[in-house]
Each structure stands twice: as structure tokens, then as C-alpha cells.
């Protein structure tokens, strides 16, 4: 007879694992990634691949050389996921060296300085993206010309690049303009926004980052994650719902200056942020009640930044700001304890 193994209960474990969740999110991103290949071509593949490889390498190297070979987390999928999310938050014609700097900030500063997986306060991919947005504003808002699917990089030089207006900058210009209709008329149709099939006046495709181009593909990813129980509906629905309701009110009050709420929720990084960035386990609240508060606040901050801030897109900053509030939300928002639910019959 062999040994008797002794441990405390429970002796059974479910099938869930860190890897299942991380790779599950990567699978959920595939429709959006495929859509981006369709619209942006080679550039999208090069940017995402560079970002993933750089993030994984930085994670491995920091684990190996700075943390002294502790349990290496490079295979758990979290670094690859950060890399993919970072790549999808970049334009498809960004030079490689900028992507590598972004990956270094994402993994090195955003994640590993705090101690690695599970310890970081801010979403690493967003840390990388926002550092690049502030440091390289021209390159980060230059979009590729439509039609050059097999060329990379497409006019990476910001002087020659196509900086043309994105749906969000059109919306922003409409707010303060005396002739708002001129800008609102340039907005793509709702269907085109949903599918990602739009070219702006300057001839730039999609006019947005790789991941945010096709809202429909992102929604398919959301459904997959809900089905696999990787995330719950609370964060994405509260963000999108808040933005829809508030921008809907603004549209009702002043339809001349504000875009319709459907166009607002389908534009820019809202879907990508609400579905994939804000739902990051580590940096979002632990309870459903907390997630609803977090989601509503992200929605409100996004509206404020989009309409009255310096940047046309407020999603990334809104998420980062609420990441900072997450520990506070966790501290004050508690689940309903057993015994506090009233009797009913």
C-alpha cells in the first residue's frame, strides 16, 4: 500500500484555473483581432505580435533577472493578454520601437513594480497606452490610409500621416461649433460603426485603434466571456448603460450639438474598454455592487472627458482613475451577508 495523503478540506477542486481565464479572454479577443486584420491588414498583425512578444519577454526577463527566478508566471497567459490588449489599443501604423516602449511601461512599470500578477493597482495595458499617448501624441493619433492592407508601416511619419478626424473628434467639435451639423453629418452610420467599416474625410481607415474598430466583434467576445463565466455582466453593462443614458439625455436636450447615444456607445474605445479593459480582474472591484459603482463612475468620467476634456477619448483615463478608487470601493462595499436578506414567502 502506498502513502496516505493528508490535507485539510476541501479535497475537490473545480476546473477553473488562472490559465483558463487568461487564455479565455484572449480567445474572446479573437473576433476583434480578425476584424482588425480585415480592416487594417498586415499592420494590425505586426503591431499586436510585437506587443505580445515584447510583453512576454519583459515579463520573463523581470521574473528571471530582477525577482531572481521565483515561480515564473510567464506561461499563465497574463503577460500575453496584456500584450494583446496593449496592441489592440494602438494604431496599426505605429513604429515598432514605440510599441516596445509601451510594452516596457505596461509590464515593467504597470505590473512588475507592484509585484507582478495580482498586485498591480492600474491596468498594465492602459498604463502602456496612456504613457504612449502622452509621450507620442502625434504617432498615437495618426491613422493608416485605407486600402493598403499589405503594407507596414503605412505612413508612420506623423507629418505625412493621415491624422484625419475620428468619430469622437467630430462629436467633440460639434459641441462647441456654431455649425454642428457640418461635423455630425460626417459621422459614419450606426451600422458602419457597429461593423467598423468607415473611412474618414481624410481617407484614413476606421480612424481608431486596432481593437476598437469593430464593435460587433467586441460584443461577440463579451458574449463568449459571459458564457464561459470569465466575467459577469456588471462592469461592461454598467459602463455602456451609463454612457448610453447620459449621452441620450444630452441628445434629447440638445440634438443639434450632440450625437445620438447609439453612435456614442459605438464610437472610439468604449466597447473595447468596457468589455476588455475595465473588466480586468486585478484592477476592478471584487463585489458585484462594487463593480456597478465602478462601472457607473467610469461611464460618467468618460462622458466628462469626451465632451469637456483635452482628449477626444476619455475611456482609458476614466478606467485608470477608477482603478485608483478600486481599493476604496473594496473597503466600503461589502456583499450582503447571509442573514441580512429579508424573509419572504
Amino acid at each position, binding site marked *: *500500500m*502506498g*502513502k*496516505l*495523503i*493528508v*490535507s*485539510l*478540506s*476541501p*479535497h*475537490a*477542486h*473545480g476546473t*477553473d*484555473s*488562472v490559465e*483558463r*481565464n487568461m487564455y479565455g479572454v484572449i480567445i474572446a479577443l479573437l473576433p476583434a483581432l480578425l476584424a482588425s486584420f480585415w480592416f487594417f491588414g498586415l499592420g494590425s498583425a505586426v503591431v499586436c505580435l510585437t506587443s505580445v512578444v515584447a510583453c512576454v519577454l519583459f515579463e520573463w526577463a523581470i521574473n528571471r533577472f530582477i525577482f531572481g527566478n521565483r*515561480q515564473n*508566471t510567464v506561461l*499563465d497567459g*497574463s503577460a500575453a493578454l496584456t500584450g494583446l490588449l496593449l496592441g489592440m489599443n494602438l494604431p496599426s501604423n505605429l513604429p515598432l520601437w514605440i510599441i516596445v516602449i509601451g510594452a516596457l511601461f505596461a509590464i515593467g512599470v504597470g505590473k512588475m513594480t507592484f509585484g*507582478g*500578477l*495580482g*498586485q498591480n493597482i492600474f491596468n498594465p495595458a492602459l498604463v502602456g497606452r496612456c504613457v504612449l499617448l502622452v509621450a507620442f501624441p502625434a504617432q498615437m493619433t495618426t491613422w493608416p490610409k485605407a486600402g493598403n492592407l499589405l503594407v507596414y508601416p503605412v505612413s508612420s511619419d506623423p507629418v505625412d500621416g493621415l491624422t484625419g478626424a475620428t468619430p469622437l473628434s467630430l462629436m467633440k467639435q460639434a459641441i462647441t461649433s456654431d455649425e454642428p451639423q457640418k461635423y455630425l453629418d460626417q459621422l459614419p452610420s450606426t451600422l458602419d460603426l457597429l461593423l467598423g467599416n468607415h473611412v474618414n474625410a481624410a481617407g484614413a481607415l476606421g480612424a481608431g485603434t486596432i481593437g476598437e474598430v469593430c464593435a460587433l466583434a467586441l460584443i461577440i467576445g463579451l458574449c463568449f466571456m459571459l458564457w464561459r463565466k470569465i466575467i*459577469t455582466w456588471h462592469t461592461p453593462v454598467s459602463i455602456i448603460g451609463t454612457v448610453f443614458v447620459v449621452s441620450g439625455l444630452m441628445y434629447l436636450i440638445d440634438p443639434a450639438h450632440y450625437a445620438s447615444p447609439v453612435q456614442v456607445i459605438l464610437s472610439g474605445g468604449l466597447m473595447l474598454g468596457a468589455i476588455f479593459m475595465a473588466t480586468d*480582474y*486585478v*484592477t476592478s*472591484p*471584487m*463585489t*458585484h455592487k462594487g463593480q456597478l459603482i465602478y462601472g457607473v463612475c467610469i461611464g460618467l468620467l468618460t462622458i466628462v472627458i469626451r465632451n469637456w476634456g483635452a482628449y477626444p477619448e476619455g475611456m482609458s483615463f476614466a478606467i485608470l482613475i477608477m482603478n485608483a478608487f478600486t481599493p476604496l470601493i*473594496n473597503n466600503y462595499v*461589502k*456583499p*450582503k*451577508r*447571509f*442573514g*441580512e*436578506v429579508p*424573509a*419572504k*414567502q
Partner: protein
Amino acid sequence: MNIRTFRIGGIHPEENKLTHEVATQVAPLPKQAIFPLSQHIGAPAKPVVQKGDKVKVGTLLAEAGGFVSAPIYSSVSGTVLKIDTAVDATGYRKPVIIINVEGDEWEETIDRSDKLETVGAHPELTPEEIVNRIKTAGVVGMGGACFPTFIKLCPPPTAKAECVIINAVECEPYITADYRLMMEHADEILVGLELLMKGAKVTRGYIGIETNKPAAIDLLTKKCAEVFSASEYTVEVVPLKQRYPQGGEKQLVDAVIRRQVPAPPAIPVNVGAIVQNVGTAFAVYEAVMKHKPLFERYTTVTGKRLEKPGNFLVRMGTPMQDLINLCGGMPEGDNKVLAGGPMMGKALTSIEVPICKGTNSVTILSDDDAVRQVPQSCIRCGKCVDVCPMGLEPYLLAKLSSFKQWERAEKEDVVSCIECGSCQFTCPAHRPLLDNIRQGKSTVMGIIRSRAAAAAPKK
């Protein structure tokens, strides 16, 4: 009818009910029977026999050692070999009485016939008499917790019992002893329920069964209609949606009568419910109607690698080794042997440990099932919070406990934890959440007790 369940958290572990349709066998007598003096919650029993004494089946071996305690009866006839210590399911050496088995001679007071006795035919059974017989027979909760049954029937003056809920949920994976008991002794269980209702002076009864046991639901529903339709009692069989830990007392009360027991020290009777296991109802029947003290029980011996897993009617004191041999012996290699099921069972350090009043199963986990996976960093996914049936935050309690932040842990209600293991079962990072929470819970409970002790003399 809509299928009910409890309202917070819960998980769906793989069922693995390998022995559902395996009819109960009577296990042979052991050569030597071992009777631990602590087979119940409360004070250990005090031995009343000495080395060399001759005992029969049903002879009192040890009397209750306090109010919260229960007497222990011999399950075999023979000679008391010694009063010694032996390793029990907790892994510690505890006082035991060891008896060398000779023949199978029963005390004459025990009615060994199969005749079904009904409550109606015994008007002499007053509630007080019923409670007294349950107490004398050493009946304790048979679901594993082993709380003396008679105490539950006598609620504190601040609470009023309104109903008896029979726990026939058996939500632990693998275990089928309660299911077999229901299929084979439904009549006796219903008489037991009637006795419990009469003893607790209530007229409402419920039997909570999960929907993975449709045959038991049908059988008991039919029998209830026959037995109780013309009586003063209202008994309802409540099918419950399959979900662990539905067999937890508080979860079952919530599922069946939609009331939540407040935080400790409140108990189910504070919301009017007295919960008893089906095995307990059967033991009550035998104790009251057949004058048979509690010395044998239904136990499942199971495991994926066992040759012939089965259900057994076992005399208490039988070493688990004997039962494992009946099922084809221990599987090759390293195994984990549990007293109980995989969610809440205790891993044994020796298979010489005897079957006790609360041993509803001997579960053998082999190969990968026997070992834990390496824990990773907490990814703060919040899934432990989602599944906690008590509405606690396991990730936080585990962290507070490992940092020895007892005050904060108390504030976060660590003592409400029922140790069901749902959090650890779910944790994608395989973190030993319950290990830490348990330590926090027991330390905080100690702090609360010593605070109460310090405050008491001043009054």
C-alpha cells in the same frame, strides 16, 4: 412548482455518486471494535465499563459527560479489552474503549423485529418521553456534525420552534448513504419525522431533497400523502435545485422556508426551524420505537479506483480498513482516505480509524484527485466572493488571517464561515483559502470567548 434553492453563492461540484443504485449490504462484524469517547460535539462521554467486563450489543459503555454530550453504546458483544487511546478521524490520539468481539448477543430490551411501529399506536409517547428516549439512546446528528439531537428539540426559551426540516439533500459528492436509507426505509423515516415533530411540539414538517434523487422525491411524496393526509401534521416534500452546500443547515432553512438565520450565535430555531438529517430521523425511530440505542449506521464506501464501492449497514467501532477490504481493498499507489465526502471530509492518517456516529462515508481519492495543485498569486477575480454561501469575502478573510489581523477579521465576520470550501473549490489560482480562514476563525472565536470570560466576573 418552482424548484427552490438557497439565495447566496453556491457551487456545482462533480457528483460522482458511484453507488446510487448499489443496495445496502450488512457489513460483517469486526474482530475488534473501537469506541472513541468523543463522537459528538460537546463533552466526551465517561466510561462506565472496566477492562474485562462482558458486554452485549446495546450495553451502555459510556454515559453523557455533560449537558451537551451523548452516551455511547456497544455495537458488539464481547469483552472489554482495555480503555486506551487511539488515533481518530481528527488525527489525534483520543480516549477509546476497545472490545474484543465474541458472538453477537443483543440486549433483550431491543426489539429486533421488522414490524413498523406507528406513533398512533403508542399513545404513551408524550413529547417529554420521546425527547428522553432520544437522549438516552445517544442519538446525535448523523449528517456529520454530530450535535446531540435531544438538545435541538428543546429550544432555548427565547426561540419558538415552528417546523422540523428533514435534511435529505446529501449535496456532498460521492455519498449515497442517505439516499439508500430513504429508498430502503422510507416508512421508518416518516415515523421518525412524526416523532421529531411531536417531540418538538410542532405540526409542520418538510423534507428537502435535491432533484438529482427523483426516485426518493417520488417515493417520499407518495408515502407522505398516505401517512400524513389524515393526521394533524402537514408534511411537504420540497424538491431542491442541485447546489452545494445545500445540506448546510442555514442554507437548507433558507431554501425550504425562505428565512435566513442571523449571524452566530443565532441557530436555525431562532427562525423557527429544527433541522434533522434523514439518518437522524431513522435513528430516532429505532431509538424510540425499537428501544435500540444508536450503534449502527448507513455508510457509503466509495472511490473511483475502488473495485466494488458500496453502501453498508455498519456497526460503529468497525475499523475502516475492514470496509475498504469489503470493497476490494485499497487501490494501488498513494491515496487520500476521507471520513466524509470530498468537500468537507477529514483526511485520515490511519485506516484503522473506526466508523463513528457521524461517519456517513469513507471516500478514497486516488491519483490526481488526492493531491492539491500548486497555488498561484491571487488574481482578484472575485469568484470566491460570488460563491460564498454566507456572503463573506474569502479572499479578504484569508489574507487577514495570514497577516494575523484578528480584529479586522472579526469585523469582516470571519466567524460566520461554515467551512464549506466553496471558495477554495472555485479559486482559479488554487489558493488554500479555507486553510487560512479556518485558522482566523478559530483564533477569533478564541478571542471572543476569552473576552466574554473576562467580562463575566464583573457582572
